[in-house]
């Protein structure tokens, strides 16, 4: 037996203490979900709630097993340690096995797991139950933003003239089930609003169902969770749950187009720029109902967000920048979503078609985006995947923003 080293002993004690403390801190952290908008541990809808009801006992069982096994190993290590004074030729009892023990600890975990299995199956059935009176929304991922199509007239078609196409943010009435169908226009993405339900991959060529329902009005954040290329990290989404009345107003407003000419002279100039440049990829209904350019590559989405009602959204560019609530222009965080996400990016009355409060528009970020979009979010504009640097002059940017501000 080599001489015991004090350094090693200190390292051992430190490690055991730190690791124990770490585990305790992590368990404690699971109970603090404020300020964590993507947490899975604080459900806000029936689906996420039934997942939570399943997960908590599973974690509890796992925790008990963890404590038993780790405790047993540590206890055994202590109790049966060889001591210096032991005779090296003195051996412990040579036990080769005990069949009844083996059978016991094969059956016991199997029984526990059978219990978990029952809960799992019941929850799967629950999560897949069809809800009557749900709103049908098709969610399409593309690099690197989300498009939403609402089947407003419930005819099973998402592309009719009565239907809504929007992007980045999904507006839903609180307390009413939404039947989401996920799909993709290019690679596989995953649609995930942790507060409302688990995730569901958006696979090109497939239509995958997912139920969403928010108990209360509020803003529910999401993040694309299937690796989808360069800007995967910058592909977020937002579900804005509103009272039913507001939702109906929102729908009415979304069905309008923007064929009326703007009145502000700056905005009139901006519209010209729009038609010359932006309309190649983007659509504003009533102005250019189809985009001017088709993307030659077959697999690439070839679409850019529909901007008909841009100012009814609180965020833009894959929900990574706030469209409203500018703060000090010198503050670098103006490019980021604010920490308090519930109020951040609030379109206010514009959401339901009211006037845009231009004083609240986050011009700094919006202008920076128009100045050089690829510098603010990694994209491949040369491959038809993302917004290029349009080399606009400052005047053009100013006019374009003025025009965009009319898109309520």
């Amino acid at each position, binding site marked *: 037996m080599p001489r015991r*080293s004090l350094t090693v002993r200190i*390292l051992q004690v430190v490690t055991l203490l730190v690791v124990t403390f770490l585990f305790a801190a992590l368990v404690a952290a699971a109970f603090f979900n404020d300020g964590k908008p993507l947490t899975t541990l604080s459900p806000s809808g029936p689906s996420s709630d039934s997942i939570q009801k399943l997960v908590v006992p599973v974690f509890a069982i796992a925790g008990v097993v963890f404590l038993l096994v780790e405790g047993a190993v540590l206890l*055994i290590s202590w109790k*049966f340690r060889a001591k210096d004074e032991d005779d090296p030729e003195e051996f412990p009892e040579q036990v080769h096995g005990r069949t009844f023990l083996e059978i016991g600890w094969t059956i016991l975990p199997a029984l526990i797991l059978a219990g978990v*299995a029952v809960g799992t199956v019941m929850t799967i059935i629950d999560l897949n139950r069809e809800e009557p009176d749900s709103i049908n929304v098709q969610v399409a991922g593309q690099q690197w933003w989300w498009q939403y199509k609402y089947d407003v007239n419930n005819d099973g078609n998402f592309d009719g003239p009565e239907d809504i196409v929007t992007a980045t943010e999904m507006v839903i009435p609180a307390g009413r089930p939404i039947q989401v169908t996920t799909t993709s226009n290019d690679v596989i993405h995953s649609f995930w609003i942790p507060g409302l339900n688990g995730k569901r991959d958006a696979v090109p060529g497939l239509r995958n169902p997912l139920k969403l329902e928010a108990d209360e009005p509020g803003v529910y954040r999401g993040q694309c969770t299937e690796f989808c290329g360069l800007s995967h990290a910058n592909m977020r989404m937002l579900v804005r749950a509103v009272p039913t009345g507001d939702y109906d107003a929102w729908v009415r407003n979304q069905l309008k187009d923007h064929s009326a000419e703007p009145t502000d002279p700056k905005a009139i100039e901006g519209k010209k720029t729009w038609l010359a440049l932006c309309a190649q990829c983007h659509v504003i209904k009533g102005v250019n109902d189809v985009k001017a350019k088709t993307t030659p590559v077959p697999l690439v989405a070839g679409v850019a967000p529909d901007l008909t009602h841009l100012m009814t959204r609180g965020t833009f560019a894959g929900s990574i920048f706030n469209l409203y609530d500018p703060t000090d222009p010198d503050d670098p965080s103006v490019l980021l979503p604010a*920490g308090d996400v519930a109020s951040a990016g609030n379109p206010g009355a514009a959401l339901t078609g009211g006037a845009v409060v231009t004083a609240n528009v986050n011009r700094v970020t919006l202008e920076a985006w128009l100045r050089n979009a690829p510098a603010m979010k990694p994209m491949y504009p040369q491959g038809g995947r993302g917004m290029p640097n349009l080399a606009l002059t400052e005047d053009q940017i100013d006019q374009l923003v003025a025009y965009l501000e009319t898109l309520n």
Partner: protein
Amino acid sequence: MALTEAGPLALTSGDSDTVYKPAGVFTRPKSGATGWKSWLTTVDHKKIGIMYGAAALFFFIIGGVEALLIRVQLWAPRGTLLSADQYNQVFTMHGTTMIFLVVMPIGAAFANYLMPLQIGARDVAYPRINAFSFWAFLFGGVFLNSSWLLGGGADGGWFNYAPNNGVIFSPTHGIDFWNLGLIITGVASLAGAVNLIVTVLNMRAPGMTLMKMPIFTWMTLVTQFLLLFAIPVLTAAQILLMMDRLFDANFFNVAKGANPLLWEHLFWIFGHPEVYLMILPAFGIVSEILPTFARKPIFGYPFIVFSGIAIGFMGWGVWAHHMFVSGIGPISVTTFALTTMFIAVPTGVKILNWTATMWGGKLSFTSPMLFSIGLVTMFTIGGLSGVTHSVAPADTQQTDTYYIVAHFHYVLFGGAFFGFMAGFYFYWPKVFGYLLNEKLGKANFWLMLLGFNLTFAPMHILGLQGMSRRIYTYDAGYGFELWNKVATIGAFTLASSIALFIFNIFYSKSKAKNLPAPGADPWDARTIEWMIPSPTPEYNFDPIPTVSRVDDFWYRKYGETKDGKLVRIAATDDVVQKLSDGKHIHLPSPSYWPIVLAFGMPIAAYGLIFNLWLALVGAIIIVGGLYGWVLEPPDDPEASHDDDGTDTHASGGGDAAVTGTSESADQSNELDPAKEAETVG
């Protein structure tokens, strides 16, 4: 064995003179040679095992640096060390490197070095194919990493889901390097699997029935069967991807009706058995170490063996648990959730058996023992978080978050790598003839345990609180800052523990000359590899022992009384084998061709990417290598034949344990053209 019988007889009937006539390059290298050149042509399973380990540790450092880059980037919101593009390449290559170039080859290193010793064989069944396996793995790994210098690494994740792996979405050659590099390492793994399975099944020492094999050998057998069947599925998927990327096929072209889930299914049918074949070798190592230092037999040998086999079988029925959110439908989700839950049962049996092995023992906490207990405790965490994924609705929240990252690092680092560390410390004296310093070893363990937990434990909570995987950046306001900082600190602690291990290797080596040699059996161990001198002589055993029970070597030293008491019956020095000159033992002769043949593959692969003429050159090297392989004489010019041949039988029916050299290697070439088809065709 038939081959070795047939060989010499063949020569008598034909023109044996011409066979032995040196014919320029067709002469085999001399066996007695030393120095670096001898490593290039060696067919010795031990040297090949050491090279596997050394190459894997080299790639481990590359993968580790990539891991540190990731952790620095995520230290704080909006990290700027790496661009999005660089980050995507780094995490892709980190995963690919750690899985294919580190964990799998370290498993192969132990299997190559130890398994023939544990079964009392002179070498593996096909020594030249063994060398070819290693070189193909090494060249495949170098080829894969050469992408860094030739336009950037793969950027689609180690799983490279379609259609994001297509040319449109990943126009650089990174994914081509990934694809062809892994086809090459796949050929290496497949050749290794055939080789090692045949070795275990055919070349055991007399008396060693399957149920008397050491557990590590059992786990190697299961692992190699998993490889045998898993690798071709990946290769099939990769052939489709290669056709798509290089020849414009439509396998993953959604515009022409392709289904992207095809790739996911093929990849995970490979990918899940892959997980088990990474962990089982470490389970085997730990099953050797725990009884040694508990000084009592492994608890429930048959249960440990059968649970390993059960894991091997059940591992094939769980792949779609990687796809719970892919849209495979609730019926499939339910089925795979249930199969996944119940694979936890055999895994749990192993953990409990290890615990029961320790119960009632006299535990000495040497470095290998500490790392083994580390595996038991850390793998338990990974196993339990694995059970939470099998609960499919929970998994819809957890999958593709850092919770998964935490889970599989607890399995692959806390499980596999702790087991490998235990194996390094345990077998170091057997392989290199000196013990690693115990004090440094223990410090190594505690530092690694600390760094490991600091790095990966916080990822559980990060994932549960919403942090996605594979994101190069995150924003303030999501509550990710604290635990990312802890994880980054942990990563550097972990790196320092690896540095300490490498330091220990050199430090212990330099101190070794002043210390007594460890001898054949420094740990008072149990299995027959410990009865031969350290470092292992080239011929392994002389004579081949006859095995009568599990832990045969232990029971040559100790006897058990009726009431389970153990008494020494022989001094260790009397039962271990003495170093002999080994002159009468014929060993397989070295060969140039394995390295030549393996070298042709990356050349062909570079050709497929850059210029088809170069591919032709590669193909010519491969074909030429094959013919050289077939036509080279069975022995080197100086091979000794000065013996009447009876000595090798002296061990009493040791026939089974002896390697077929010339003929087995010679005939085995029939396997290769077909294998090449996977690469070229």
